[in-house]
């Protein structure tokens, strides 16, 4: 079932991609890649240092003050979601059949749910009327999961090149990891 969905998605993108022509011009792809790296640094710098603060680095800094960096991490994420989408909309088969891309999406999903959990479980302790200087224990677990998830996203992203899907030879599995012919 998932195989059919993947094949359908690749076919739809290949037939209707609004950006493929632009992305195949000489410098568009390298420029988008450079932006993807700049966004990565912004995201890791802002979210990573906030996570480290939750884990007691620079513990005299109020957590709410440190949280002012988070919008810059979200800006980095927005840059990377946009440029990442450009790549997928240009060479869909290279991503949608790529096992490294599947793991990258999984790690991104975990990072997203994990960030949501932070606000759901720790908002009052961290941003309330009498905020604690020491983050609650569950916030520390969340910070650790966040750091691990983002590092996994980077590693999987870097590994995409080395797990490019080849031609299918009787492939079985939950997700298709080769290009059907």
């Amino acid at each position: 079932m998932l195989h059919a969905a993947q094949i359908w998605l690749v076919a739809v993108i290949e037939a209707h991609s609004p950006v493929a022509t632009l992305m195949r011009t000489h410098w568009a792809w390298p420029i988008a890649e450079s932006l993807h790296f700049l966004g990565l640094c912004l995201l890791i710098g802002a979210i990573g240092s906030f996570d480290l603060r939750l884990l007691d680095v620079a513990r005299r800094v109020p957590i709410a003050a440190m949280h002012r960096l988070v919008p810059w991490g979200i800006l980095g994420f927005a840059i990377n979601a946009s440029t990442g989408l450009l790549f997928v909309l240009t060479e869909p088969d290279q991503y949608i059949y790529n096992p490294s891309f599947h793991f990258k999406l999984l790690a991104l999903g975990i990072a997203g749910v994990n960030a949501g959990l932070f606000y759901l479980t720790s908002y009052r302790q961290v941003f309330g009327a009498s905020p604690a200087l020491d983050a609650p224990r569950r916030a520390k677990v969340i910070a650790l999961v966040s750091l691990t998830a983002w590092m996994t996203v980077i590693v999987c992203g870097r590994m995409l090149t080395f797990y490019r899907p080849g031609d299918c030879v009787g492939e079985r599995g939950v997700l298709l990891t080769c290009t059907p012919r």
Partner: protein
Amino acid sequence: MLDSFLVWLESTPLSQWVVGSDSMFAFPGILALHAIGMGLAAGLAAVLDLRILGVARGVPLTEFRRFQPVLWGGFWLNAVSGVLLLVGYPTKALTNPVFYLKLLLIAVAMVLFVRIDRLIRRGDPAAAPAARRLRRLAITSLVCWAGAITAGRLLAYTYHRLRA
């Protein structure tokens, strides 16, 4: 002279392991570490620069120094992984002017970081003359890191010779 050095370097076991090994810890793993080190070093430097330029004013600059070991950790991780990548493909990097531009920009960015830190340590970074100097250094630092990262990415598109 350079050519015979490149031929020799590419013939060393370490170079052949980096390039030729099927292990995911060879070339792919080193590249992945290089990306993580980049995120830590350039990311934390950028966040320090943003703080100087007025973001998250509630965070005292002197307290921000606590994140420095992470920045240095990223820097040294990339110095080591970068040397390994260079040993793997010396001709590709050393015959490309963009590679020297990248190294220069990183060197300038790190010197700026050390100077920014010295100003912060000297105390009262909010005093007017120091604050203006800090802002100038922070803007230059951001430009250097963005340039270094872009140059690094473009290495894959601008090289003339892959191997000696």
